[in-house]
């Protein structure tokens, strides 16, 4: 162990075609996460927070 990160690895060490790896599954998962984040934020900010009693206005 050790030295690996400093060993100037080249892509061919990995095996052919890996340069072209497209993480489409990751993009899908993270897209779902993004949608959940946006919807939850809209709910909690605009409905839960701004809809409560005694909003501080000054």
């Amino acid at each position: 162990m050790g030295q690996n990160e400093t060993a100037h690895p080249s892509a061919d060490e990995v095996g052919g075609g890996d340069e072209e790896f497209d993480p489409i599954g990751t993009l899908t998962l993270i897209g779902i996460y993004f949608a959940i984040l946006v919807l939850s934020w809209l709910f909690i900010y605009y409905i839960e927070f701004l809809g409560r009693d005694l909003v501080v206005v000054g």
Partner: protein
Amino acid sequence: MSEAIEGERTFVDKFPEEAAVVRAAMLGSFLALTLGAIFGIIQTLHRTDVFRGLISSTDYYTSLTAHGVFLALSFTTFFLVGLFTWAIVRSLDRPLLNIKITWTWYGLMAAGMTMTGISILAGFVDALDMSADVLFTFYAPLQAHPLFYAGLAVFIVGSWIAGADWFRTWLAWKREHPDERIPLQTFMVLTTMAMWYIASSAVAASVLIFLLPWSLGFIDQVNPTLTRTLFWFFGHPVVYFWLMPAYLLWYTVLPKIAGGRLFSDPLARVVFVLFLLLSTPVGIHHQYLDPGIAEGFKFISMTNTMFLLLPSLLTAFTVVASVEYGARQRGGTGLLGWLTELPWRKPEFTGMMLAGLMFAAGGFSGMVNAGMNINYMIHNTIWVPGHFHLTVGTAVALTFMAATYWIWPQISNKPIYSRSIGLFQVVLWFIGMALMSNAMHAQGILGVPRRTAEPEYAGFEYAAGFGGFEELNIQIAIGGTLLFLSTVLFIGNLVLTMGNPKVSGLAETLPPALSGPDDAPRVLDNLRLWVGIALVLVVLAYALPLGAIISRGGLLGPGVGTYPVWLVPAADALANAPALLTGVVVDAIAALAEVGR
């Protein structure tokens, strides 16, 4: 896809002295975890009114202080120094410069934490006139025994020497390898420590200039807003200090366990540079609801905080992509079908993945915490600990536990006692935290406060929202109990592992990244530049607010007292002693004169 080649040397084979330090640091960390977990289960059951027989509600705060200090400061930092020592030595492939210095900082940190720990635990013993019931945020004018502050100072100085130890080792390596890029793990350690120096300078100043002299009675009062602001100057970057070792593991170890390799080395460097730059000039977001700080400063802090989301969001992509690469190497196919090809039976893999999943959820509650005016809704409610039990309590803690299953054999040559128990343990943690944290968030929305022994009040009842108050209490109690059981299994498994005989063939290697360091612009390795920019950003974010706070309240506070008073009575007694003594002597002489007459 196992790279464990028979006969290859493990870390402990190559660097036995450093491995001993790593083991000692991690054992210190697990001792803190054990103590913290014991206080955790006591509090969970007390707060939820399931069982209040063990401690009184007054002692609850002693327990809470212990839970916070042992877990948030001790467990995290000791694991970090162990992991970073491993990462530096492993990635530079050279020993530390002087192992005596290494043991010195370890000794200082252990001594400091012991001092602080004693001052806290003494609070349970009525006979001892010592306590530190100030929680891990130690806001003045609540005061702890001087030993509490002195211990913290010693602990922080120890961590500074640790950082210097790693920097010196890197500089020695650089002289031997003048034209090479900084290895990724070393880069991560150095940027994290640079951030730590900037951040901890403020809390060290607060402790040494104000809190310690004040607790010793040298100064009468402090400015509560000033010491509080200095705390949060440190208190927000410290959460990234906890998180960075977990990131180091996600970037450099998790892809390998998944059977792949890191997707992008350059982006990993960018992420760590962003944390160095942005972690500190954001602390005022913990003070959105503080009086005496202008709204403009709060808004600036919020903008910085929101941009601090960026490195974490980028991390999510890079780490998941690296794992996906691993799954596809293992034969995974389809849009999401590759998920089934991952090594879910390995505790180190499943633990880290579940930790990452919880961090994604914690990301959402963190956005709410960061949103300036929405803070009115959740500030100081139990939502906040609900959030950080997802981040430090799971993203960090669960990653550390999972990583232990991977790293311990390499630093001890002893195989894990039971990997099945390990797998069960990490899943149990996830389930326990899902229950507890979810219920804490929901109670927070109802307005239930954090940090209280008895959250039920005589004069009113909470409205029902996502579940009623009582029902959510049950969820918290069950979740907390599962977390405690999970900790017991982890510690038990590790103790049994330590009893295992030493074997060979446990070595693991880390593969290089798909897009390696040569794709990263060289400027990324210019640490001086990044530290310089980080300092400028800190000055921009803090000079005006700190100036305003001092000009409002003064360096030593506007007519604020001390609660409770520690040494002042003793000092008064000492000051009065001469007068008292003189009086006694005079009386005695007078009496003698009477007798003589």
